[in-house]
């Protein structure tokens, strides 16, 4: 069974559609990337799946269940989203403990304290951070909290919107490692949006290149690693990202 199935999905924000006729199938346990420039509609796809962009038609299916246009509690339990900016996505006046307990309270789950403690451990945060506020944490630590919050309900699908682009390279490496480890440990399916092809090469199995709201190429990560794209735009993007590896990086090999 596919984890995410999109059929002829067209999404808009009231006016002209931003995403046209997207058909996509992400298998269970797969890590799939949507890449493209700003304005290509990649984040809009995630928002539509998460229920944040209700103006769409077509079909959105997650784990075999079709998504409606209203907020859906059962749906939220299986599919959660992590946002780009850890500085903006955490409530500034709630402690980490409050932030992580809230989804549990909404879904009426018990053992909250225990689950929070376990989750902090799973995302590699020390227990002393539990009763701190977001402003007392660094960017990398905040992104760990955002990931922890998304995982509190033990979802099977995680939507990741540029999870590392607001972070420094060394912190990016930590978060990428974390995402990779969590995926194996909890058998998660990732749908990741990014403009960074290097991140895709590290974290994903397949990718779709988007432009002007349409998917121009669907490729495996092997294609990405060898740069054998078919579509001229995908090649352009590949070349602009510095090809197989930048001078600085190849120096290390």
């Amino acid at each position, binding site marked *: 069974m596919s984890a995410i199935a999109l059929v002829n999905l067209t999404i808009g924000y009231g006016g002209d559609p931003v995403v046209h006729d997207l058909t996509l199938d992400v298998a269970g346990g797969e890590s799939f990337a949507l890449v493209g420039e700003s304005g290509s509609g990649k984040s809009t796809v995630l928002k539509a799946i998460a229920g944040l962009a209700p103006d769409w038609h077509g079909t959105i299916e997650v784990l075999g269940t079709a998504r409606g246009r209203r907020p859906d509690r059962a749906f939220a339990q299986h599919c959660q989203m992590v946002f780009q900016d850890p500085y903006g996505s955490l409530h500034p006046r709630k402690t980490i403990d409050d932030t992580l307990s809230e989804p549990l309270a909404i879904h009426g789950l018990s053992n909250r304290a225990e689950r929070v403690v376990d989750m902090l451990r799973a995302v590699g945060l020390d227990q002393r951070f539990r009763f701190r506020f977001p402003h007392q944490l660094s960017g990398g630590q905040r992104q760990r909290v955002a990931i922890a919050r998304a995982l509190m309900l033990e979802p099977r699908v995680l939507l990741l919107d540029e999870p590392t682009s607001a972070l420094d*390279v060394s912190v990016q490496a930590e978060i990428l*490692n974390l995402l990779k480890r969590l995926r194996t440990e909890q058998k998660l399916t990732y749908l990741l949006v990014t403009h960074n092809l290097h991140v895709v090469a590290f974290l994903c199995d397949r990718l779709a290149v988007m432009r002007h709201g349409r998917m121009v190429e669907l490729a495996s990560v092997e294609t990405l690693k060898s740069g054998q794209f078919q579509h001229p735009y995908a090649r352009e993007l590949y070349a602009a990202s510095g090809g197989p590896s930048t001078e600085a990086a190849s120096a290390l090999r």
Partner: protein
Amino acid sequence: MSMPLLEVEDLRVAFPGRDGPVEVVRGASFSLGRERLGIVGESGSGKSLTGRSILRLLRPPGKVSVGRMQFDGQDLTTLSERRMRALRGARISMVMQDPKFSLNPVMTVGDQIAEALTLHDRGSTRRQRRQHVIEMLDKVRINDPDRVAALYPHEVSGGMGQRVMIAMMLIPEPDLLIADEPTSALDVSVQASVMDLIDTLIRENGMGLILISHDLGLVSRYCDRILVMNAGKVVEECAAGALDQAVHPYTRGLLAAVPQMNETRPFLPVLDRTAWEGT
């Protein structure tokens, strides 16, 4: 090498903290000829403050102290604010990170570029300036410069906005350009074209460039020499081509932490911050 264009010795920047002043830049020294120097480091390394202190753009409560800071034979530390103003833009100019916040939203693009010219070259007529602006826009590869000159900043895209910034900064023909993360707010495909443009203009005019960035790949591609900063100190200085022979553990850690396009490592090595920081 001929006489250096810029010499900085023992630059220190401090901000007041709860327990006395906190030094954010702790004794950075470097010199620069008519070449391309890259300063890399992560957030909080003091790289941007270093760039700003050269232009004396730091406002109180930030405190700058410097052993020696000379630009083309002039002592930047003792120059009056008036003389400094004449120097900014005309001799040393700076391109900031995000064109959205560094362009004046209520002035057309053409007028803003012309303003940069008016301030430093009072002799020219309106018509000459206009002509000059159009030529400059053409130089930064904006198609249809006549149309773009009449647009307001919100009407142009990010890449175009950054080109406008570059046009504005280069029109007084400075000797040194400080570019602080000039492409971080732009898409990858636009990044390369903006960097190529800066590179070409720098070479054509024989200027010096200080490129401040967190992106090792970018800096090694577009610079001759690289300074690596960490926690306010220059920890390593090397030729851009010799970045692979970098010896400092911080530099090596940074290099290794970048995922590769043909990535095979199951996990990325992570910096052990305790190894070289006193914290």
